[in-house]
């Protein structure tokens, strides 16, 4: 009897292995996890013999795992540094979708807040400490700004959101760049830390006079009213999917895509936006997996982009997709180029 059960198990296991002929493993950023799982399930409908397994363990984990070669692809909200790339030669960045960081606040009676880069950086540097500061009242004519202290909230956990936000502040404020810098975790001059988007939202909602930053997708899903940011062209832009995509237009995108598209000069672009990337090896070692992965990336750049907006991600603008196409054509499997568009 026991023997029979063992045999049955082996037979079943073998059958399962035979049916799922291909499993591609990935790990990394949590921010794009919803769109990636949507893509994987949609792509699986087109290619039932191909399955993806994605573990959203954080960008840092994604970079570590692709470096160690324990996954077929990694994912990150922040481009790899030179130091990280030197340990993982041959890894390329493929931008997939875009996200934005929005400013939320808790001031009674204030519906629409307008912020310039100078005031935002001054608030986060602790230089503007009251809501009725002349700099704020000048930018928000007609708005009733109270004589109330500003409580600054930021992310306490290391995150790509913080990376984009601090990169923007470093670009627009020399003082920020010198004193604080940009990174996934920084030494904040002022403020309280909340864990995750929900933690920051919690602090902002609970503290009268608070200001904080969260992801656009999170703000949209939770119906938070974000502030309008003045962009490089001097226009106050509301963060939404269109203005986020526009941030990647009119910026020079380097060939390795390791770029923050914050402070975009485009007229209708929201200035605190950025890419999220998949990390893959330029030359794929496994013939079947490599080909499938490259074809999936091609699909994600084209048919896949339509799934972005319903999940509150901004699709890549056309010029970026065109550029990624040329990059995907340079990817190889065991040294040989692949028919990227699939069969």
């Amino acid at each position: 009897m026991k023997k029979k059960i063992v045999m049955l198990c082996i037979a079943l296991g073998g059958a399962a292995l035979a049916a799922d002929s291909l499993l591609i493993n990935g790990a990394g950023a949590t921010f794009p996890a919803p769109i990636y799982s949507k893509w994987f399930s949609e792509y699986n409908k087109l290619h039932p013999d191909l399955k993806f397994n994605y573990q959203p363990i954080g960008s840092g984990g994604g970079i570590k795992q692709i470096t160690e070669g324990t996954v077929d692809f990694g994912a990150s909200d922040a481009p790899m540094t030179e130091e990280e790339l030197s340990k993982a030669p041959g890894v390329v960045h493929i931008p997939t979708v875009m996200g934005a960081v929005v400013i939320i606040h808790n001031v009674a009676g204030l519906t629409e807040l307008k912020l310039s880069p100078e005031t935002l950086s001054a608030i986060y540097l602790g230089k503007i400490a009251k809501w009725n500061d002349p700099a704020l009242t000048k930018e928000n004519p007609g708005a009733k700004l109270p004589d109330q202290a500003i409580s600054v909230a930021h992310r306490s956990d290391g995150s790509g959101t913080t990376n984009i936000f601090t990169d923007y502040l470093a670009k627009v404020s020399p003082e920020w760049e010198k004193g604080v810098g940009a990174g996934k975790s920084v030494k904040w001059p002022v403020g309280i830390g909340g864990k995750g988007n929900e933690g920051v939202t919690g602090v902002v909602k609970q503290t009268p006079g608070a200001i904080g930053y969260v992801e656009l997708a999170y703000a949209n899903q939770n119906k938070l009213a974000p502030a309008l940011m003045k962009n490089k062209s001097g226009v106050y832009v509301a963060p939404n999917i269109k203005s986020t995509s526009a941030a990647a237009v009119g910026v020079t995108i380097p060939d390795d895509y390791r770029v923050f598209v914050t402070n975009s000069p485009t007229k209708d672009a929201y200035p605190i936006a950025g890419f999220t990337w998949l990390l893959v090896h330029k030359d794929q070692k496994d013939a079947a997996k490599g080909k499938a992965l490259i074809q999936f990336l091609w699909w994600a750049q084209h048919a896949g982009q339509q799934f972005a907006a319903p999940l509150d991600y901004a699709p890549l603008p056309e010029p970026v997709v065109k550029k990624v196409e040329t990059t995907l054509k340079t990817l190889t499997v065991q040294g040989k180029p692949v028919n990227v568009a699939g069969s």
Partner: protein
Amino acid sequence: MLPEAKIAIPRGEARRLRALRRVNVGDSSYNALLWFFGGSVLVVAGVIVFGLWGTASPAFRATSVLSFITSTNWDPVQESFGALPFIYGTLVTSAIALLLAVPIGVGFAVFLVEMAPSPIRPIVSFPLELLAAIPSVVYGLWGLFVMVPWLRSSVEPLLGSTLGFLPLFRGPPLGLGYLAGGLILVVMILPTIASISIEVLRTVPSSLREAALALGATRWEAIRVASLPYSRTGILGAALLGLGRALGETMAVTMVIGNSPEIHASLFAAGYSLPAVIANEFAEATSTVHTGVLAALALILFGITLLLNSVARLLVRAVTKGYAKAST
């Protein structure tokens, strides 16, 4: 004197002896198994320390242990790290938690064992068990959305206006901060302390209590001279278990402590704790120095727990000795 005689073993006896030997084999393997279980705890602790040390060593190559422990600067961008704000925050929140939870928990236990009429005992002790079963993230959310606003609008202004002459209760009432972290820990370690104290107080022989009463002691005096001294080692143990949980609690504390790596005398100010910073930054730490210092913080937490446990053990021993002397 009896003549030497060859002992003839009867058949049945031989079988019995063989069986006995078999039992002995079982005995020795059982013995070995227990040694293995006993040793495994040590091995696990050793492996943890060894692994942490391995991960932490790049950090100690970058800075000395002493400057790491005494520095208050925490700047991941410049890779300059100091552990003091986190050590301070962990100790302060745990101290608040113990100072409040021990009297409340022991008082609760005394009430339940000595005073409460038996029909209401289960009514009171059931919610206590329920409190122990709530996951810490639920405590954290409750803390953030219910306790923190209450602290900001009522408790902290009141403390500030009445006890504001102490540096502990100065500054703007933020809600989030050391006080919130400590209070959430009070709620979390209270069930541990209370339920163990209840068990300990139940073991007090009723003859002791009756003797005290027979000598003319009031109910309170009987508790004070008979029940509490008899169970004080157990109560200390309960406090120790509570302290262990308070030191290591991560999720609930990080949601209410404010997560800012600074040292303030005021309990109203935002701080940070060792487990909180590890949980916050580890997932996204990519440089070896950054992961290294986080592992080093874990080692420090390990060290603090070890140190406080040893001190408490010595305390227990001293107290037991004192009690033994007093009672003879």
